Structure formats: structure tokens, C-alpha cells
């Protein structure tokens, strides 16, 4: 006789056991011939240079923080979803409960939505796009001269 959470516990245990078994079986079956190349860090075929632990830009943090806030907001919406449509509460209040609950949640989400709109409109979520500098040389040779030369000689060939 297992409770519901007993089943979940069994699931968790089974998951861990499965990982262990698979890894163990793989160890039995696979050949083991390491060399230096194989043991090095995989970096898209590049030679890895330095430490991966570099200093990040603060802008990642802003995005992460906004994410956390909306995560928390989401957590608050779970309880709301369960009580919003409860027949007992709606009957008790002659149907006004549903509207009341809807307003509550919309207010909450709305205020945070305004916050997101603010952050967005301010451009804090924009990444700085690289602005390529096109080199300019002051010269008397017109820019389309090369094109004309190419056109001229490409046709003259037999």
C-alpha cells in the first residue's frame, strides 16, 4: 500500500537506478582506449584556450532577474488556477467570485506586465548590436570602376 508520494519516491529511485545501470552496462561493453585527444575538452573542433570561467556581462543578469520575477509570478498563478473556477465558491457568492478572482489575477499580472513593458520600452532587454565600420578611403578612382573593368574584360574573352 503506497501513498501517492510513495509512488513518486519510487519513480525518483527508479530514475537514479536506471542511470546507474545504464552507465555500468556501458562500462562493461565499451572498449576503453583513451588518448590525449579524446580526453581534451570538446570545443567545436577548436583548440580550447583558457578558462571557461570568464566575467559575464551584467546584461545577462538583468534578463535573469526579470526571468526570476516572472517565475515567481507564475508560481502565484498556480493556486489561482485551482480556485478560480471552483463551483462551491461561485455558488456561495452568486457568481461574483469568478469575476473577483479574475480581476485579482489581472491586476497582479497587469502590474508586472507594465513592468515588463517599461523594461522593454527602455531598451534594457536589447543587446548592443555590433555596428560594423565600413572603411572609407578618399580616392579619385570611382567605386564602380572595378566593376566596369570586370564587365569589359569578362565579355571580351572568347
Amino acid at each position, binding site marked *: 500500500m503506497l501513498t501517492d508520494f510513495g509512488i513518486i519516491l519510487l519513480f525518483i529511485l527508479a530514475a537514479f537506478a536506471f542511470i546507474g545501470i545504464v552507465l555500468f552496462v556501458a562500462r562493461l561493453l565499451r572498449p576503453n582506449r583513451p588518448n590525449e585527444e579524446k580526453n581534451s575538452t570538446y570545443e567545436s573542433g577548436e583548440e580550447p584556450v583558457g578558462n571557461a*570561467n570568464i566575467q559575464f556581462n551584467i546584461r545577462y543578469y538583468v534578463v535573469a532577474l526579470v526571468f526570476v520575477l516572472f517565475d515567481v509570478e507564475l*508560481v502565484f498563478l498556480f493556486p489561482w488556477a485551482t*480556485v478560480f473556477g471552483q463551483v462551491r465558491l461561485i455558488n456561495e457568492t452568486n457568481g461574483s467570485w469568478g469575476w473577483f478572482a479574475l480581476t485579482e489575477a489581472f491586476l497582479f499580472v497587469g502590474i508586472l506586465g507594465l513592468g*515588463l513593458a517599461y523594461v522593454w520600452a527602455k531598451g534594457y532587454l536589447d543587446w548592443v548590436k555590433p555596428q560594423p565600420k565600413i572603411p572609407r578611403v578618399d580616392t579619385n578612382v570611382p567605386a564602380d570602376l572595378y566593376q566596369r573593368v570586370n564587365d569589359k574584360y569578362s565579355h571580351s574573352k572568347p
Partner: protein
Amino acid sequence: MSEFLNQFKQLTATGYLFWVLAILALLSAVWVVTARNPIHSVLALIATFFCLSGHYILLNAQFLAAVNIIVYAGAIMVLFLFTIMFLNLRREDEESKTNLTKMAAVVVGGLLMVMLITIFRAKSAQVPTFNPVSFDSRTGLVENLGSILYSDYILPFELASVLFLVAMVGAVMLGKREAGDRHF
């Protein structure tokens, strides 16, 4: 010792689970403090949160357990990782803690622990124990929380959104790129 063993034999499955989780939580919490590599600290902290979630489930607070994993082990830990990456911690910077600081921390923490243990063991502090008659396994479910949160506690709930807004506006205001800052 034998008394302890006897007590141990009488434990139910929940009791064993409690001990296992408690020991795991303590070990991983110690690991958080002692790990040399800050990333390892974060991983250990995640392990601690999972153990605590197990405790919440044992305490019949299922929704709290889920929230603990979603918000703390998930989102907050991401923030922690980011912070570690900003700080660019190197081995050499580590010795900023003098022995005196460490001693003081140990003394304060130890005092707090002794105090809390005394409090919770005190006769007058005994909270009611498990009562099979009045026990309701559905207390911690999300529905009950919802009906309280959205009727009695509506005002603090709505004002919590103001709190989030302040945090959001403040963070982006402080984190805004100033002219002349690095680009990447």
C-alpha cells in the same frame, strides 16, 4: 547507545526518510560552506534545496516543495551562477577572510545553533504532535492555499506585485549600461 538503536528500529518508513534527508541536507549544506570552487557551492546548495523539498513533502506541504524546486533550485540558482560569473572569482582572492573572521563566524553560528536547539527542546515550546484523527493530508495542496491567498490575503498579494516591480525597475536601473562600459 542501545536505547538509540532501539529507537532506530522502531522508526517507520517516513522516519527513515526523514533521517536520510536530514543527513543529506546537513552534508550538502556543509559542502556549500567548505567547497573551494564557488560553482561546487552552488551545486551543493541545489542538493540542499532538494533535500529541503523532501522535508516539505514529509511535512505535508506539497505545493511549497514544488515552489522550492521551481523558484529556488531553478531560478534563484541561475542568479547565483550569474553572480559568480560576474565576480570572476580567482583562487588568489580567496584569502580575504582572516582567521579572526572565521572564528567569529563559527562562534556566532554555534551560539545560534545552541540557542535554537535549546528553544526547540524546551518543555514550553512543544507544538502539538501528529494526530491521526484531525490529520488532513490535503492541507498543503495548492487549492487550500489558493482559497486563502485569493480571499483573505488579497491585499498583501496584490502589493507583492509592487515589490516585484520595485525590484525589477531597480535592478535594470542599476544594471543599465552606461556610456563607455564594455560591450560584451
